[in-house]
């Protein structure tokens, strides 16, 4: 009887024994020398089971939205499970492999018949070649992409209600040499120039970082920027009224719900960038469109 994500989602009680049996077989296969270590086998199985629960799949029925895993065929889902087991097994093997400290041990190790060692297959990192696998790679992308930088700008501007913290942050940006971003913030939004002497600057900076960290991880921040960008792209100019217009439904395409669009629009209203009272149709004056474009498109 094949096992699918659907079975785990809707018939967990019946499917769990099959899942366990499959994971157990694969765990023993990939654990090599540790395959008779019951604790290690359990650990690998437990990792995958916990992952399936934490992802909102195992036993969740309709209470969680379907994910990419729900769209896999049964063969693909088995491949996903098998690879997850493999990743964890290799992780465990690496942790349990004793360090080689002498040349004699090294020779012994090389001479040993290790054909069945799963680590031999894992020449590259078990993390493979996934994009964004390091913080450096992620932050470089965040800094390079104009739209993602716009979210950073949005969150820095949200500090206007705490001028000392904003000042401390601008100081940091200046010291950092992030001139483009700094100039954009200063000129477009008439922000004050950073002042030099503030005995509490370090404290202000810490508070600013905390708020910035929180803001950047909020979907509402992302929505503000995303909707602003879509407004500049989707808004159509009417020759008669000289106003731009679009609809909530249009802004929702692709990948957004109407509720998310409305949340983003409300955030822009709160920032004074838009006049909107919850209607399906959204209209912008040319001045508002220009401001939105400056706000999120240019630096």
């Amino acid at each position: 009887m094949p096992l699918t994500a659907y079975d785990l989602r809707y018939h967990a009680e019946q499917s769990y024994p099959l899942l366990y049996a499959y994971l157990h077989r694969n765990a023993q296969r990939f654990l090599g020398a540790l395959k008779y270590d019951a604790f290690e086998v359990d650990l690998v199985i437990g990792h995958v089971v916990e992952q399936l629960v934490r992802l909102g799949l195992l036993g969740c029925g309709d209470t969680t939205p379907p994910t990419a895993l729900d769209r896999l065929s049964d063969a693909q889902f088995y491949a996903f499970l098998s690879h997850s087991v493999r990743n964890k097994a290799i992780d465990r093997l690496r942790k349990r492999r004793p360090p080689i400290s002498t040349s004699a041990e090294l020779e012994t190790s090389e001479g040993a018949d290790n054909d069945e060692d799963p680590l031999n297959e894992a020449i590259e990192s078990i993390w493979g070649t996934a994009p964004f696998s390091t913080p450096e790679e992620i932050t470089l992308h965040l800094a390079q992409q104009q739209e993602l930088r716009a979210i950073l700008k949005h969150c820095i501007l949200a500090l206007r209600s705490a001028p000392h913290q904003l000042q401390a942050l601008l100081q940091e940006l200046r010291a950092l040499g992030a001139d483009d971003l700094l100039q954009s913030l200063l000129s477009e939004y008439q922000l004050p120039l950073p002042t030099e002497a503030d005995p509490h600057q370090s404290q202000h900076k810490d508070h600013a970082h905390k708020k910035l960290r929180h803001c950047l991880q909020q979907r509402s921040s992302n929505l503000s920027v995303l909707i602003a960008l879509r407004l500049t792209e989707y808004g159509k100019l009417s020759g008669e009224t000289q106003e731009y217009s679009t609809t909530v439904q249009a802004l929702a395409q692709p990948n957004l719900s109407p509720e998310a669009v409305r949340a983003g629009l409300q955030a822009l209203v709160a920032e004074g960038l838009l006049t909107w009272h919850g209607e399906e149709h959204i209209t912008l004056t040319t001045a508002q469109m220009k401001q939105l474009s400056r706000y999120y498109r240019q630096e």
Partner: protein
Amino acid sequence: MNEERDIEGMPDAQPNQYARLAHWIQQVMQQPDAAPSSLATTQDNAEELLDLQFDSQYHLRYYQQLPNFALALLNNEPQATLHYAALLYHLAGCDVCRHAYIDIYSSLKEALRPSGPRPFLGQGTRTLNATPPRMLNHLCRTLISQAEAVLLQERHEHVIPSDWDNQNKEEEARVLLRLALRMGAHIIQQNVRRQALQDLVRVASIAEGWQPVQPNDPEARSYTPALAGTTKTRGKVFRRADMLQPPQHGAQATFTIPLQSHNLNGTIVQHGNQLELHLKDLDVAMRGHHVRVSVLLGSLIEPVRWYGRDPHAILSPTPVADDGSLIIPLGETDLQLSNSEDYQLLETLFMLVDVRKA
């Protein structure tokens, strides 16, 4: 989108004018608090409990976006990183979520673009009874921990309704607890089952908004199942279904679930399809009064048709007798205490029974 390079082919030797800004973002995003711990390490004792990877404080909101994010990247969706920008900023500072993302990305990639032969498919039929209790134990604890994480998220975060966020978190938590309860009932050993479900009552209390009985309240009592061999009975041989033996000649065998509340005993007794709660030695303050019985987990599953339909408010038909005894019919069920699986499920169901003066 203003892509300056391919998503898959990130940094190379090209000088980058944004490198310093990137470094600063990394510093800002660094989580000051300790991330959820990865608990399982190198214990050799197979009898040890298998620890959970995450506690209920893990970053559920971001974690559950990982498969879709990974798929969007694999499909080279043009606005993938903008659409998941909040997640990407989070991954810049959270090692645990980033490792989970890499794991999921790698497995999803292998599923969609296999680099080798397909793994063999699962075969045969298996039952829960053939599954090791320690793994059922682990599953139950994971489900309960996840239910708590879901409830914590609901209470602590302002959720924007969207395609990512589930609006019915309480129902999700209840579904997880219900599954834990049912799975736990398949664990035969009472001590292992207790261990597996030790947090069930606590988390269900959060879900149900349960007000616990105060320890010194003379007008209320909290009963929990007694450990096997700890109850004293007089006149009858009380049996647990997982200790079934042929009844001794002359002895009357009654299948019951023994309960206790400090020094007081109670029992769940079955007559036909009817379940009754038998209490004795109730406090003087409760004598002569009706009581209200609450079965905390009663609303999670439906094998019992509760009298009055509300398992949290079952009113006693008679007042507590002068000697402190009382029999309260609770409801009807097709489950039988004489059947070991049914017994385990019912014993789990009665993990917390509160009795309060009405």
